[in-house]
């Protein structure tokens, strides 16, 4: 295990919960949405405009109706018309207004029907796009990335941050767009009604803006803090759940709850503050709107009483108190709508801040450096003639070759894939300052079994990390069949290596699917044969559904040893010329291990095997055993030679018998 897992992550990397969104996140987000869904976006925008304007026009209609009615009443009272005569007088224009209303509203309903549906499609499509591109990008990242980031932190980009983004896209952004359309339209209307009153509105809105900025800013701050608290609590719960058995065995439930309470109270505290600010924002802004409403009525009434002439964008109006009064009456609901719109938008502030912070983290994940690969030597199927010349071919022949194009002269040479590994004076450190492997040299010929022995932290696993280029060496050379592995395409290099890792990772799916992971086109028979080889067939057949038993990530009732057997079977079906077994049998009893070894030895006849183990019985029959200490090979030789030498290996081996 690379020791850098314990290195503290610099603040603000992927998964940091505390930073605000980077500048330009909104722009990038919108550009991304637009880039992938231009047509949908345009359609949504058109519908949003129609639906917003429909809402606004309600006030215009009110004004129209009120004007006509006032005219009708004055016709009755001043001109002495009967009600039916007055009715006949105003009916045509009233009807016109009603029909227009019906048309506009129908259009509005259709628009809102369309845009809500389109929005559902747009949001989910975009989330799907961003999820998959995040996932796809992630697949290209080097192992170093995964070693230096906690799984939970990366996961939060897929869960919390994507959720926040959904909120932002499906609610806040359309709300913002629709609100700004309404605000602009209302503005024009208001100016059209009365500039005096509009000036008052501007002043009020400015006040509302100031309030929103100060309260909303505090609220946003605590919302971000709440996210940190959630992260901390989640981390704690995860750790406790992971060690649930230990908690039980030690009756530590009370203490676990105490620890939880501490985190929980912190979270509650932050949540309370965040929500308090968010909650009081609406009544404050809303009631400022109410006060403004009163002020408008007051000032308007004053203007009428004082006999002022109304000013609109078309200039000063004729002195007409009755008309001015109707204007004020129509202006009032508009002002209410206007401030209401602004109050509503202020409510979106938190989701915008959180959504943007989420988007910013998602972008950070997507901007990581992918694994570099400058390799150009590839692995191809080939046919070998009697005279030893190699021809590339498409069909299966059971032979593989390295295809090595030479840039200098444009020729291509083929080298047969054999599994010969050389390491020459290799130095390596996970961080440049700390070299963990010194001057490692070794030669593994096809058919050889090379074993590494040594304490944890001696650098055994590190060596395998270098052969498959999970990490790149600092100095020295590694050659595969005589080719520097830096020249080999990583995918092809890894394809030629069968690796069974220390930590067994199985995937959700059936047992059969898990074995087939080693070779996607393997037949059932091949998989079963591999399982037999790994001595796993026996226990698999005893599972409830045999090879079709579903395995879940952590739930399955497989023992540690059984999981290891399965991962060996998975490597066996891959059938690679080089096999690396990293503590692959540590939880398997020695008797079963001997049987597994017999199987793998048969499989690997004539091929290269690297074995890493604590248990010396695992490595005894290796051709050469390397004893590692602090990143140096301190002894090498066969079991017999090393025993005869009486050095470190001898001490390790005889340790058990010393006391007797």
């Amino acid at each position, binding site marked *: 295990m690379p020791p850098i897992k314990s290195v503290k992550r610099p603040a603000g990397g992927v998964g940091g919960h505390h930073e605000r969104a980077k500048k330009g996140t909104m722009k990038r987000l919108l550009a991304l949405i637009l880039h992938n869904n231009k047509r949908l976006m345009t359609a949504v925008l058109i519908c949003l405009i129609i639906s917003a304007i429909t809402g606004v026009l309600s006030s215009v209609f009110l004004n129209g109706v009120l004007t006509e009615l006032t005219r009708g009443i004055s016709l009755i009272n001043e001109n002495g018309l009967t009600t039916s005569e007055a009715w006949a007088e105003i009916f045509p224009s009233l009807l016109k207004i009603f029909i227009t209303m019906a048309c506009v509203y129908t259009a509005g309903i259709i628009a809102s029907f369309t845009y809500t549906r389109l929005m559902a499609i747009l949001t989910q499509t975009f989330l799907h796009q961003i999820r998959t591109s995040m996932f796809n990008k992630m697949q290209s990242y080097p192992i170093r990335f995964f070693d230096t980031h906690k799984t939970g932190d990366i996961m939060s980009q897929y869960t919390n941050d994507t959720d926040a983004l959904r909120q932002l896209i499906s609610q806040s952004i359309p709300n913002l767009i629709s609100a700004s359309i309404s605000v602009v339209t209302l503005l024009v209307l208001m100016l059209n009604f009365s500039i005096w009153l509009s000036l008052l509105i501007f002043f009020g809105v400015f006040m509302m803006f100031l309030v929103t900025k100060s309260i909303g800013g505090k609220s946003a701050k605590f919302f971000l803090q709440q996210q940190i608290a959630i992260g901390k609590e989640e981390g704690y719960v995860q750790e406790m759940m992971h060690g649930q058995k230990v908690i039980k065995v030690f009756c530590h439930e009370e203490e676990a709850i105490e620890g939880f309470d501490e985190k929980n109270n912190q979270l509650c505290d932050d949540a309370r503050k965040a929500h308090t600010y968010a909650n009081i924002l609406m009544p404050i802004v809303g*009631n400022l709107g109410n006060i403004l409403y009163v002020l408008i009525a007051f000032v308007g009434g004053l203007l009428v009483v004082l006999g002022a002439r109304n000013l609109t964008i078309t200039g000063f109006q004729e002195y007409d108190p009755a008309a001015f009064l109707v204007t004020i009456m129509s202006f009032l609901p508009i002002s209410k709508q206007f401030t209401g719109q602004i109050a509503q938008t202020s409510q979106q502030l938190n989701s915008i801040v959180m959504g943007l912070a989420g988007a910013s983290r998602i972008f950070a994940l997507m901007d990581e450096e992918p694994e570099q690969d400058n390799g150009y030597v590839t692995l191809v199927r080939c046919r070998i003639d009697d005279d030893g010349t190699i021809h590339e071919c498409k069909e299966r022949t059971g032979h593989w070759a390295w295809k090595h194009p030479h840039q200098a002269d444009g020729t291509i040479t083929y080298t047969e894939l054999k599994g010969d590994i050389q390491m020459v004076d290799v130095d390596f450190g996970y961080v440049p300052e700390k070299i963990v492997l010194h001057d490692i040299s070794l030669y593994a010929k096809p058919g050889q079994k090379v074993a590494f022995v040594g304490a944890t932290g001696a650098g055994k696993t590190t060596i395998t990390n270098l052969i498959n280029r999970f990490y790149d060496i600092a100095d020295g050379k590694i050659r595969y069949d005589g080719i520097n592995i830096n020249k080999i395409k990583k995918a092809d290099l890894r394809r030629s290596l069968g690796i069974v890792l220390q930590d067994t990772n199985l995937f959700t799916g059936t047992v059969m699917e898990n074995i087939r992971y080693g070779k996607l086109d393997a037949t059932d028979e091949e998989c079963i044969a591999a399982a037999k080889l790994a001595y796993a067939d026996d226990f698999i057949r005893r599972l409830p559904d045999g090879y079709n038993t579903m395995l879940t*990530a952590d739930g399955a009732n497989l023992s540690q040893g059984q999981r290891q057997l399965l991962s060996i079977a998975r490597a066996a079906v891959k059938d690679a010329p080089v096999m690396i077994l990293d503590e692959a049998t540590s939880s398997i009893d020695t008797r079963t291990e001997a049987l597994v070894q017999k199987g793998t030895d048969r499989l690997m006849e004539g091929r290269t095997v690297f074995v890493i183990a604590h248990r010396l019985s695992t490595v005894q029959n290796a051709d050469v055993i390397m004893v590692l200490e602090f990143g140096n090979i301190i002894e090498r030789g066969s079991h017999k030679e090393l025993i005869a030498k009486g050095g470190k290996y001898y001490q390790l081996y005889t340790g058990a018998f010393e006391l007797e």
Partner: protein
Amino acid sequence: MKKKKKKSIGFIPMVKTLGGSIREYKKASLLTPAFVMVEVILECLIPWIMTLLLGAIEVVSGTATNPDPLVVKIVDFLTRGQENPNILLIIIEFGLVLIAIAFLSLIFGALSGKYCAIASSGFAKNLRRDMFGRIQTFSFANIDKFSTASLVTRLTTDVTNVEMSYMMIIRTAVRAPFMLIFSMVMAFSINASMALIFLCTSPILALGLYFIMTKAVPFFNRIFHKYDAMNESVEENIRGMRVVKSYVREDFEKEKFGKASDSVKKDFIKAEKLIALNMPLMNFCVYFGIIAIYVVGSVLIINSNQKLMQITQLQSFMTYSFQILMSLMMVSMIMVMVLMSYASAVRITEVLKEKSSITSPENAVKEVKDGSVVFENVNFKYSQKAEKYALSDIDLEIKSGETVGIIGATGSSKTSLVQLIPRLYDVSSGSVKVGGIDVRNYDIEVLRNSVAMVLQKNVLFSGTIKENMRWGNKFATDEQIEDACKLAQADEFIQNFPDKYDSYIEQGGVNVSGGQKQRLCIARALLKNPKILILDDSTSAVDTKTDALIRHSLKTYIPETTKIIIAQRIASVQDADKIIIMDGGAITAMGKHDDLLKNNAIYQELYYSQNKEAK
């Protein structure tokens, strides 16, 4: 995969269960809606008073044709019967009242917001606490049922969803209908026949909403399952990245995830399209309601020459209409929110309602007499659904103070056997006795405090070594900790750490080696001063010499403690009083090293395979 249909929890019991977590936040939870009501009343008064003001201006300026008697009364009161009332003064007086009301409304609104935040965050806190506490009482059978990942999601995301809903319910869900009702009342008081128009649209709306809800709920339940599964697969991918890369399966994984994500997308779109019907439906009802009001209103005003209805009234009627519209929008928004969190509420209730399958009995035995262990006809399987028993027909007697070794092939149920002793699982039939009493009769804490078990999959917690050690005994002195570590052969390497016993262990113990971790875990168990010590393959990463030293010190320093050792190495068990050989969930042989070496084929094979060279 679980195919069994879960028994669904009724709505009322669910609300009761969740409501049980409100506790000390009841006051805040009740104050919130009370403040909201005051706020709403004040808010609704504003347009009404406004109408009065406009009426008053008309009355005073003499332009009123058909003055409202209430307005006349108010004007009389304000002008105190003066001949030439000052219209300005009236406007100012009205204005001050209105501004005062708006201020009060602001204060009550802010108060309701504050108490709402207190109530909802407190409720969420209690929910999380109750769930976590509940989970701590779970047996492994319970935990296996939910899976760890799902429990974590329930504790975090689901609680947040419910918290948001709760906030909605005590504040907005009170505000919106109350606003609706109040606006309706005001509308009725202006003109009852016209307000009836609103009542006509309500059934259409209610029916529509009902349709959307009933269709969408099952949809959402299914989606959340899928969504969880998708996220679990991402986690699996991240954890297994080394496997993915070694097998060059990046493209395979991309395709797999792409499919899962696409299927989630499709389902979400279907469900959200349903929900999206909400908005146009609402618009339809409100817009055509407004047209109807205009038509009826115009007829009324003109035909009665403002006797039945005045133009100013039509205007304030419209203000209430808009308020009704806003409330309806809010109601529908709340419906959607609550709908989305319904699935979360169910998932939380499932945890809160889950009964631990292992609890202390009444009149539990409070003392473990000695370290003897007896298995009588024990059969055991992990779940009732499992066809095969993990353990069958186990009969075993271990005397107090004995050392017992257990050896067996991979998957032979060695771990299953010892897990029954501290009652981590219950037997399916038969009985396990510790100190002569069935483990099911003990108080669980007493039993587990007497049985120390070092697990195969060891876990250390983030914290210093000392803190980790005190898991074994809260009150252990530094000397006791050091002694235990010496026994477990851990003292030496701890002394080599820069901070010695105060060295910080990272989460999961990733910064100590496997062998060091195992020794720390043994020391932690020793601090419990147990009557029975179980080592489940706990020295596998320790070199043979240290392993021997540990066994030696156990024998010398805690002779009365019963020691049960599961091991792969014959050397670890060969000087035990009794060696048990297990195969396929049954005990196939039992005896001392010499007997087994003579008579048991498996044991011989194991012994010689491990000691080939030595012979």
